[in-house]
Structure formats: structure tokens, C-alpha cells
């Protein structure tokens, strides 16, 4: 009798990441999403190096010029170069929302797993509080926070992180519920492992994927939310270029200077589509079906 042994080496974290990314890129939608996302991130990092004009140089003589070889996307109502402002406009949004979703991921994931694990009364109470928060229009609450504490990034990141983490709590809790009834948790309990050890060793590896995908999805929603804040004048303060703010400033002149609105809209929507496609491909690469797994 011979035993056929399949040689399979354990994968390092790096090779796992490479594998996930290559799986994501193997579908056209995932590839497009990744390309858009990488383009936007690299643009945000490098754009100050090659921005053709000064983003805050106001020149009344250049007001609302149509796109030309000098001003590729034309100029806005204050005579500033729209192209420069567009390529710089994603920087704040990306940074704020990236760290915001990271915070959302951490607290939402931690609270969700905790609630799923302990269950009972504590779970009930926490989830009702979350439900209550979900029923408050987030934008009103955000406006309140921002008007009380100011619009600095230090305020915006945790505030956005808090409001977008509520949905993650639910996903993390649902994913934990799937795992918690399994015998390996019972086995760990019977051995006498503590709650922290059970969370870290037994639950987290099984819910991590679901939480990460949800976090990626929240990122695109938060981006839209952040731009809405800027649009209302509560996000980035002028003259810092930002898509939401640019759309807000130029929308009154849309009928005769469409370029000043179109460029930031294109920037914002392409980034959101990119993140969405990437998150979906990420979910598929990890083997999570978002259409059935995401409860919110």
C-alpha cells in the first residue's frame, strides 16, 4: 500500500496576499477596480509633484475659462485651474476616509465579535443601542459634531469612523454567530481557554475576511459621506481643494461652465466605483458571497 502525499507548503502571509490580488485581477471587474484604485492612490500621493498650477492662485482675469491647452479642464469662478484642483482634490478625502474606515473596522469588528460571543442581555442592550444610532440620520449627527468640535481632520476621522462602524458591528456579530455554535469553540471552552483567547485564536481567523470586506465596502460609502459633508461646507475648509467642495462651488454655474463641475464629479465617482469593484472582487477572492452574507 502506498500513500500518495500531496506536497503542499504552508503559505506565508505575503504569498497569500499575492494570491488574493491575482485572483481579484483575474476577473475583468476586479481588474478594472484595482486599476482605478491604484491610479487614484498613486495620484493622491504624487500629484503635488507635478500639479501644473498653484491650486490657490486666484486670478479674476481667468474666470471660468473653457478647457484649453494651458488649463486642461478650464478654470473655476475664481480663475483657479480645475485640473490642478481635481488631481489634488482626492488627497484629503482619501486620507480621512482611509483612516476613518480603519477605525470603523477596529471598533465595529471588536464590538461585533464581543456581542456575538457573550450573547444574552449584554448583546441585546448593545444591539438596541446600535439600532437606535442607525435610526439617526448620520448627516445630521455629523453636522452637530462638526459644528461643535470644528472641521479639522482630528475630528472628522474618529467621527466618520464611529458612524460607519455601526454597520460593521452587525456584520461582525452575524459572522461570529455563524462560528460560535461550532464545536471547536465548545472544545476551546471545555479546555478552559478564556474569552480573549477564544476571540483571538478561534473566532477572529474565521470572521476576519467578512469584516475586512465589509470595511472595504464602508470605505466607499464613507467617501461619499465625506464628500457630502464638504459639499455642505462642513468638510474640508477652503482653499484646500476637495471634490465635494468643488462641486458645491461650481454647481450654480453648471449651465455655462460645466467643466468646473464635471471634473470633480468624475474624480469622485470613479474612485467610488473603483473601491466598490475592488471590494467585491476582494470578497469573491476570499470566497464570501456578499449578496447573501452582508446583512445591512
Amino acid at each position, binding site marked *: 500500500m502506498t500513500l500518495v502525499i500531496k506536497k503542499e507548503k504552508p503559505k506565508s502571509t505575503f504569498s497569500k496576499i499575492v494570491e488574493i490580488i491575482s485572483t481579484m485581477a483575474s476577473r475583468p471587474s476586479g481588474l478594472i477596480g484595482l486599476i482605478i484604485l491604484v491610479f487614484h492612490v498613486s495620484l493622491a500621493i504624487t500629484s503635488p509633484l507635478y500639479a501644473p498650477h498653484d491650486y490657490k492662485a486666484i486670478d479674476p482675469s481667468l474666470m471660468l475659462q473653457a478647457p484649453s491647452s494651458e488649463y486642461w479642464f478650464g478654470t473655476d469662478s475664481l480663475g483657479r485651474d480645475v485640473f490642478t484642483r481635481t488631481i489634488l482634490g482626492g488627497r484629503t478625502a482619501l486620507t480621512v476616509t482611509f483612516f476613518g474606515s480603519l477605525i470603523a473596522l477596529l471598533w465595529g469588528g471588536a464590538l461585533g465579535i464581543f456581542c456575538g460571543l457573550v450573547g444574552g442581555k449584554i448583546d441585546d442592550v448593545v444591539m438596541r443601542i446600535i439600532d437606535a444610532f442607525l435610526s439617526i440620520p448620520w448627516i445630521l449627527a455629523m453636522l452637530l459634531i462638526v459644528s461643535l468640535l470644528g472641521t479639522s481632520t482630528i475630528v472628522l476621522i474618529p467621527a466618520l469612523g464611529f458612524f460607519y462602524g455601526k454597520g460593521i458591528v452587525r456584520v461582525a456579530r452575524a459572522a461570529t454567530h455563524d462560528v460560535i455554535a461550532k464545536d471547536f469553540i465548545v*472544545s476551546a471552552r*471545555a*479546555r478552559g481557554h478564556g474569552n480573549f483567547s477564544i476571540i483571538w485564536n478561534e473566532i477572529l481567523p474565521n470572521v476576519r475576511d467578512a469584516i475586512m470586506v465589509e470595511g472595504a465596502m464602508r470605505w466607499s460609502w464613507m467617501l461619499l459621506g465625506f464628500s457630502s459633508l464638504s459639499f455642505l461646507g462642513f468638510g474640508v475648509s477652503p482653499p484646500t481643494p476637495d471634490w465635494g467642495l468643488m462641486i458645491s462651488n461650481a454647481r450654480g454655474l453648471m449651465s455655462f461652465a460645466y467643466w468646473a463641475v464635471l471634473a470633480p464629479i468624475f474624480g469622485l465617482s470613479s474612485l467610488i466605483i473603483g473601491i466598490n469593484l475592488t471590494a467585491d472582487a476582494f470578497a469573491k477572492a476570499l470566497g464570501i458571497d456578499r449578496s447573501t452574507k452582508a446583512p445591512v
Partner: protein
Amino acid sequence: MQQVVQEIKNLSIGFTSQKGEQISILKNISTIINKGETVGIVGESGSGKSTLALAMMGYVKHGLYTISGECIYQSNDILKMKNRELENIRGRKIAMIPQNAGQSLTPNLKIGYQIDEALRLHTNFQKEDRDVKISELLNKVRLPSPETIAKRYPHELSGGQQQRVAVAMALAGSPDLLLLDEPTTGLDVTTQAHVLELLNFIAKDTGTSMVYVSHDLGAIAQVSDRVIVMYSGEIVLDGPVRTILKNPIHPYTYGLLKSIPKLTLSGLPNSMSGSQPQPGTIKEGCSFYDRCEFAEDKCKIKSPELEFVNEFNTSVRCFNHKELHKKKDKDKKSSKNVLRKLTKNEILDISSVSISYAKQKFIEQLLNKIDDTNPTVKDINIKIDKGETLALVGESGSGKSTILKSIAGLIKAKDGIIKFDKNKILSSDLKKREANYLRAIQLIFQNPDESLNPNHTVEEIVSQPLKLYFGLSGNELKQKIIEVLKKVRLGEFYLTRYPRQLSGGEKQRVAVARAFAAKPDIILCDEVTSALDVSVQAAVLNLLQELKEDFGTTYIFVSHDLAVVKAISDRVAVLYQGRLCEIGPSESVYKFPSHPYTEVLLGAVLEPDPDIKPKLVAEDIVEEKPPEKGCSFQGRCPRLLGQICKTDVPPWQIDENGNAIRCHIKINDLKNQQISN
């Protein structure tokens, strides 16, 4: 000449792998189903038996496709039919009874309506006639008071009743062919015996041909006229039931039958090595080559054809079936005797333990008190000696797993004391137990897919108890893990594997390794073999026995499979509705099941032998709750004395063999009654 109902010609079904290879699930299946015949298809999981049954209905699972061959019903190939044409055949001519009736019945429609729907689709009856027919059908499957059953929802019926309803629905169109896919697998032993008896009756009564798919040779033996044995997508043996089960001429069937624990044998069955190959891994030669005791060089190169042996009226796929036949006669002794070393050294003392699942009221929660006069488990008194294997048996709902969990500290007992090693009282709260006592009691679960974390490697899984109890780390830890894996016959290369890369038997070995890594005194085994295939089950049982001999571990073994229990246990405790009925040395319990319930339970066990019929003594009613007063078995007891059984809890009686029962009837009278029967 018999009338042919269905003919399968050279059927191959398969899928295309990610690499673009064509992989067959079924390989060149050819067989004929005659009218009025019951054909049993047996095989382990992954042998393709369900795929074959579905193909007989013209259904190929999503992702699979027909590679070649045909499935002929009334001179048409049903695999090539359009959905419209199939609709006229399915249910009307060929009906299917699924494995889990509870899941196949629509939960929010009444039983009567669902059967009516089947009748509406498959017959031309008018409304009034259909109502009559519904009662008729429910009567036929022996459901009490059909009118009331028809008004119920599926969840209001027991598992056995649901299965009967599924049979009634299948019979609605009076089909020519009935396909049954593991119809009794999820049922209790007594219910299973009743359902099989019903199916036998229906087959005779209606003359319907049946194809009975199962992994359970015991069930197959009871119902079939002919048996097809499948291995790795091929038919390896096809012949009359008696020949196949009593005189198997294929080495796989031979090994399989030897690895089944039987009530008529003592000791552990022999195990078969290895496991069934994954589809697509065998490119040439016999697919059983790796596991075959009789294999020769030619078996590796050339795949044997199905050959008809006149002498046995059987088709066999083996070059060496003649040699096997000769060799077999010499090799009569087919089981290992279990070494029984009993020391009178008590390790666990369970005294008057009661467990309740009743919800605590708020005040009771505060006072840490449970107020339940009729708890799920009541009055359990068992003393267990060191190195003993005690089996807890009973049907589902008998509280056997509950008791196990309570010993492990996972469920708080309402009353009673569990003492470890004579004087240490184990706290019923897990968190209050000291690490050393947690270590001393380890659990092995039923399904290794659930009990092993899918995201941990074998190394991580086995390291958990070693790190927790012994604080090992680094190289020392790794050496210890390798050592433990070696004990369960797993090599070092398993360290980096994930559970999904292992077979069922290997996974259960990892679970056993994890339990033994803690160097426990007691191991609680919760149905450890019921998720495994028969050939693997024997190997795991043998492993557990060997480990016990090496380490002197005490096992508390929970199982619903009485033959498995007989093979491994020293003592058996029979439970009904959370109350002990009988406890005693397994030999004497199996020889003389004194308590009426033990008698019912043992009578219902199915042996893989068509000549041993189960004894159906009691009704297969399912009781929801234990009775408030009197004997726990009063509702189903075939030997009910009268009022006394309903009012007084029966006393304990002990016979000369140390067999203790709880019954109002004198123990010797019970024995005499059984002999006179």
C-alpha cells in the same frame, strides 16, 4: 422474462476541473432495474451513489454533465429530455424520497395541502376524490388518524412521521420506480426499523420498483432484493442480496463487511486501511488498488472489467475474485478481542445529577437556583472506574450528550455532585474548575468538520492544549506535537495541513490527538464515529482502543449505534428520556437486555444480514417530554404492568451478573418472558 423499468447503459457523469481536465464521478455504469425489484445501492460518501440515483430521475447536479451513456425509461433516454417532458415523468412515473424529509417538506404549508398538491400535479383526480386519496395515502404509510395529520404543519410531526409523509407524497402519483436517498439515515434506531418495514410492505403491496441508496448495509439488507456496491464511481459488485452480504466476492465489499461492528460478534472489527480516492486521482488501474489486500501488479496497470460470475449470479469488478473466495475461508476470525483490564479504582462518581434546560426566571437567576420539577435529565447515578469504557446509549433526546456536557462543565447541573478521583468535587461551573481538572477531562466531538477550526493548521490545533496546560513553546512544543501525532498514526507532514485538506478519518485522528495531547484521565467521546464512513469508523475505534491500552484512559462513550457500543464498551448505561433504565457490563446487557426499553432498542438494530430481521416490539412514538410521575418508559413500554408504572418510579434491581435495571417487573421474570417469546 422480467419487465424492465429502467436501463442504464454505459453512463458516465463528470465535471471539468479548473485545470480543464474532465473528471468522472460515475464511470461506465450499466445496470437494469426490473419491475417490482428493490435494488440497494451501497457505497461510502463520494462513491457516486446519489449522483446515480439522481441520474435515474433525469437530473444531473449543477456543474456536472453527462459524458456518455444513457438512462432509458420507456425506450426514451431521460437524460436527454427537455424539462417539459421530464415534468410528466418525475413524481408521476419516477418519484424520489429524500434523505431529510423535515427539510424537503415546505414548512408553512399543511401536510394535507402538500399531498393534495402532489395529487393535483400527478393524477387526474377531482377535488373530492383527492381528499379521499389523501386519507388513503396517509393510512397506507400507517400514520395514526390521517385527518388530524393532514391538518398539521411539518414541524408538528416527528422525524419518523415526516419521513412517512414523504413516502405518502411519493406514492401519490403511483410511480413505477421509487428512488430513496438515505431515507432513514437521520432517524432513531427504532423509528428506522419501522420505516424500513413499511417500505418493504409498500414494495410488496404496490409492486413498485425501488432503488434504495444508503451507506448503511444493515438497512440495505432489510429492504433489497439485489445490491449494487459502488466504489469511486464504479460498480464493483452487483448481485443478489444474500450473495453480496454473506459471500462477497469483491475485496472492497469483503473488507467493508468485516469492518462493520455487529451484535453477533464480540470485540472490535478489523479496519480497512486508507480511504476512497478523490475523483480524478486514479488515472489507470483498479481504483481499489491502494487499499486492496489481494492486489497484484496487474491491478495497478489495468482496470478490471465488470465480469459476470455464474456460480454466484453476480457481476464483479476484480481480477482475483476466485482467489479471494478461497482465501476467505481460511480467514474466519474476523474480529479482535478487546483486552479488558479492570481495576476497581473509581475515577468519576456521578451522584444524583439532574440537568434542566428550563429558562431561569430573573429572581432564580439571582438566587442561582433552578425550579423545575421535571428536568430533562434526572437522577443519574454512575460510578466509573479507572481504565473503563462506559457507554451511554439511547435515542435522540435521551439526554446522553447532555450528561457528557455536564461532566465537561459545559452545562450546569441543577442538582447532584460529580466527584473526580474519589474526593475532588468538580464545580458545575467551568470557570471555577482548576486547570488540572480541566486537563483531566477532554472531549472528542461527533463531527471533526465542526470541531476543528478550519483556519488552523494541524500544528496549531494540537498545540492548543499543550500550550494551555503545559506551557510548552518553541522546539519543545513542536517535538511534542509530532510525538502526539505519531500516536494517532499521522506523520510529521500533517503539521502544516489545514482540516479541509484531510479526509474524514484523518480529521477525526487530529481531534483524537488534540484530546490526548492534554494527557487526560477521562475522555468524553460524543458520537465520535457517526460522521465517519464505515471503513474509517473501524480504524478510529481500533485507534481509541489502542490508545486506551497504552495510557489507561477512561472513556465515556456516547453513541446511538448499539453495535459500535458493543464493540468498544466495558459497561453500558441505557437512557430513556434523561433517566437511567439499565446499567451493567456490556456482555450481560447485550446477552440479556432485561429492561423493556433495552429490549426494544436492541431488537431494532439492523444487522447487515438479510436473514436477521429486526424485532419490532414497541411503537415508534416520539415523546416530547419525560413523564412527570412514574417510570420514564411508560408511554411506549410493551410490558406495561398497569397503574403502578404511571405513579411510582420503579426501584433498582440487580441480577447476579451485575446488571441493574429500573423496572417494576422482577428482573428474572423479564428474562423468562424474553426467552418464552
